[in-house]
């Protein structure tokens, strides 16, 4: 039983910077947990604390039953795969893989046997006598994996092990690592900034931002029920469209669609049926106030095709098509609307993750250009650049967020003590 438990683990550097704050995390035995977040979010620091390469300022770290806060790395029964592989350049592949066993003073025959086994699993047998400098990137990556699995540790730690591979090899190695982990059943913590790796590999995914845990859950739940704006904006590609809207709850029953609400998005509006409101009672508290409306590209359909069955009246958005990306199986359409994009700190930090220009673009849109929405149309759609696109909105799948706290508006009124977990509407994405 080797679960890894982090209990209010904090890392503060001598210069006062807090890299990880009060991190509570529990990785179950045999689980593959992915830590994901933008650069500088503290995910690598958290991993390095588990490895023992970074000291823990406060909190408690347990591997299995043992508190390992002050144990050196070698006594923690862990193995780590580094981003740059960190292979010993002067040793052969065989010596690299067997180094830890040699230091543990295992008998020579056993070292040989275990290195051969690891090499067989990773298809490295014919390279055993080469040095790392003579290997390709993918082979080096496998040697690094070999060095980890040969020790049969109770926990694997992986720090962006695929980021130095090219795209095609990365996809292949991703599947190999996930398969290997399932086969060995070893508890694994995997750090990445690539959300595709996070979604495809992890049993559960923990999203971090600025040293704090945002949400930890299964990939599907993360996608369909993001706990806050940051997770919503970070997870998904293309990412969720986030617009600023105002809620108007219909005054009491009566006519057909009674008990619903209307969301006005600038000059356009969306009518919400009563069922939407019933699933998200918290929304009532925002009557007359601003919210952030999130809609994933796949819940926007080409109205001329009638993709979504019988959309309720008024559940449409329109705008000018500025760009279309035909992917064969589907069509990504960038539509300029006259809505206002939501601009909060969370959205900003995701937009600026790779490029400061992203934030600038967002602010220009908010200042009057109008929000650019990405819709995922059926491949049959005839939308062309310059057309006006009519989009059906699947209002049942809309997400609402509190613009002040960034939290998702779901169950009870936020001010009341939460009596139940967020509405279990878990629709498969």
């Amino acid at each position, binding site marked *: 039983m080797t679960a890894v438990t982090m209990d209010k683990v904090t890392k503060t550097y001598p210069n006062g910077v807090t890299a990880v704050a009060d991190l509570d995390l529990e990785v179950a035995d045999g689980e593959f947990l992915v830590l994901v977040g933008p650069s500088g979010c503290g995910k690598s620091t958290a991993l390095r604390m588990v*490895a*023992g*390469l970074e000291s823990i300022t406060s909190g408690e770290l347990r591997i299995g039953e043992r508190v390992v806060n002050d144990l050196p790395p070698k006594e923690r029964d862990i193995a780590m795969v*580094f981003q740059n*592989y*960190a292979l010993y350049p002067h040793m052969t592949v065989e010596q690299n893989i067997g180094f830890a066993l040699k230091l543990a003073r295992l008998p020579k025959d056993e070292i040989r046997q275990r290195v051969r086994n690891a090499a067989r699993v990773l298809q490295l047998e014919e390279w055993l006598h080469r040095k790392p400098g003579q290997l390709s990137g993918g082979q080096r990556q496998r040697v690094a994996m070999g060095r980890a699995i040969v020790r049969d540790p109770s926990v694997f730690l992986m720090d962006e092990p695929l980021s130095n591979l090219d795209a095609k090899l990365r996809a292949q190695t991703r599947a190999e690592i996930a398969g290997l982990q399932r086969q060995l059943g070893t508890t694994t913590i995997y750090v990445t900034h690539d959300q595709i790796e996070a979604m495809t590999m992890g049993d559960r995914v923990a999203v971090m931002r600025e040293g704090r845990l945002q949400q930890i859950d299964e990939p599907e739940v993360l996608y369909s029920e993001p706990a806050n704006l940051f997770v919503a904006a970070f997870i998904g590609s293309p990412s969720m469209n986030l617009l600023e809207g105002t809620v108007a709850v219909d005054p009491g029953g009566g006519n057909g669609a009674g008990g619903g609400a209307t969301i006005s998005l600038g000059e356009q509006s969306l009518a919400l049926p009563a069922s939407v409101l019933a699933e998200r009672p918290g929304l009532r508290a925002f009557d007359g106030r601003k919210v952030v409306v999130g809609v994933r590209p796949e819940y926007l359909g080409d109205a001329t095709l009638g993709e979504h069955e019988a959309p309720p009246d008024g559940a449409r958005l329109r705008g000018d098509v500025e760009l279309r990306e035909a992917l064969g199986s589907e069509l990504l359409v960038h539509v300029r609307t006259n809505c206002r994009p939501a601009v909060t700190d969370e959205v900003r930090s995701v937009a600026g993750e790779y490029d400061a220009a992203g934030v600038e673009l967002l602010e220009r849109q908010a200042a009057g250009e109008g929000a650019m929405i990405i819709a995922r149309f059926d491949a049959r759609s005839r939308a062309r650049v310059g057309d006006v696109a009519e989009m059906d909105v699947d209002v049942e799948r809309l997400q609402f967020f509190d613009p002040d706290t960034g939290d998702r508006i779901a169950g009870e009124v936020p001010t009341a003590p939460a009596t139940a977990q967020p509405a279990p509407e878990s629709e498969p994405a």
Partner: protein
Amino acid sequence: MTTVTTAPPERQPEALESGVSPAREGRGSRLHRLLGSIPTGVLWALVVLWTIPTMGMFVSSFRPEIEVKTTGWWTVLPDPFPDNQTLALLVALAFIAVVVAVVGLLARLYHHLGRAGRIALPIVAVLAFVGLLVASTDATFTLENYRQTFDASTSDSPDMWQHFINSAAITVPATVIPIAFAAFAAYAFAWMDFKGRDWLFVSVVAMLAVPIQLSLVPLLQLYVGGAHVTAFGETITLFPDLDLAGTTTAVWLTHIGFGLPLAIFLLHNYISSLPADLFEAARIDGADHPTIFWRLVVPLSVPALAAFAIFQFLWVWNDYLVAATFLGTGSADAPMTVRLATLSGGRGQDWHLLTAAAFVSIALPLAVFFGLQRYFVRGLLAGSVKG
């Protein structure tokens, strides 16, 4: 030439019509290549220029005493025109050109050879050259100078072999010990966290600036009587009187002291540039500091260690000042540099002995340089190119 032949034949008439003749293009690229080869040419010229005195000394060391004292070493070369100086000079220049060309050809051949060939080729070339020279000249050559140089029959004789041993006895500890200490220190400064590390490192590096002349007298006092501080009637001994004055130990101790700061500085730069990942991976693999040092740092630092070893070896081997100060010029323990100086001072007339003795004294550095030159170049480039 080559550009002309590589141009597609059917395009040549067009080029002629448009006024750009292929020959012109060829001349341009030839000029470019010519200009590009100038730096290499200058280097070769420097190599020849700097090798001539050594060669002169080498030749002189084999000439009989009388001839050394009466004629120049170049007179061993056959003179085809004893009556016409200008013609003789022209022939000499032509000869040098031929030698340079042959050396250039051999250098090209060298790249295609295996390990054994690379060792054999220079030896064979030198032997062939010497053989050619000896065969074509009517000058006499003798080993008498070397016999006299190694003569130890009287207390006044050169006895160069003994002084060769003395030099080695000083140089070996003065090279090996600082490397060992400095590698440990450099690793600690680079990869171990301890209080006052930066402060200590800066003070070690600051010692690079201490001029050796400044410390000669204090060091001599230290070796003669130790170091003591007297305050309030109490005498505290900081350094005991080890009676080191006039011993070989005093010389290599001094060299170690002056070699260490540079050694620590150089090795620290190299070792701290090794990737941190490597050390972290080793720690996770279960290595502690001694293991990391012996299994990772030492094997990975061989180029830097070798480069410093060459520097320190040459510096100590060629040193005169320290040895003369701490041993005295007449000492039987004196290294070859000191003995050479007394040889020329006491027997200024014995040039023939001086040439042979001097050649003996450069024999070992030459061997060390050629043996380790691979590391020498790599060590100098260390850090500038990411491997």
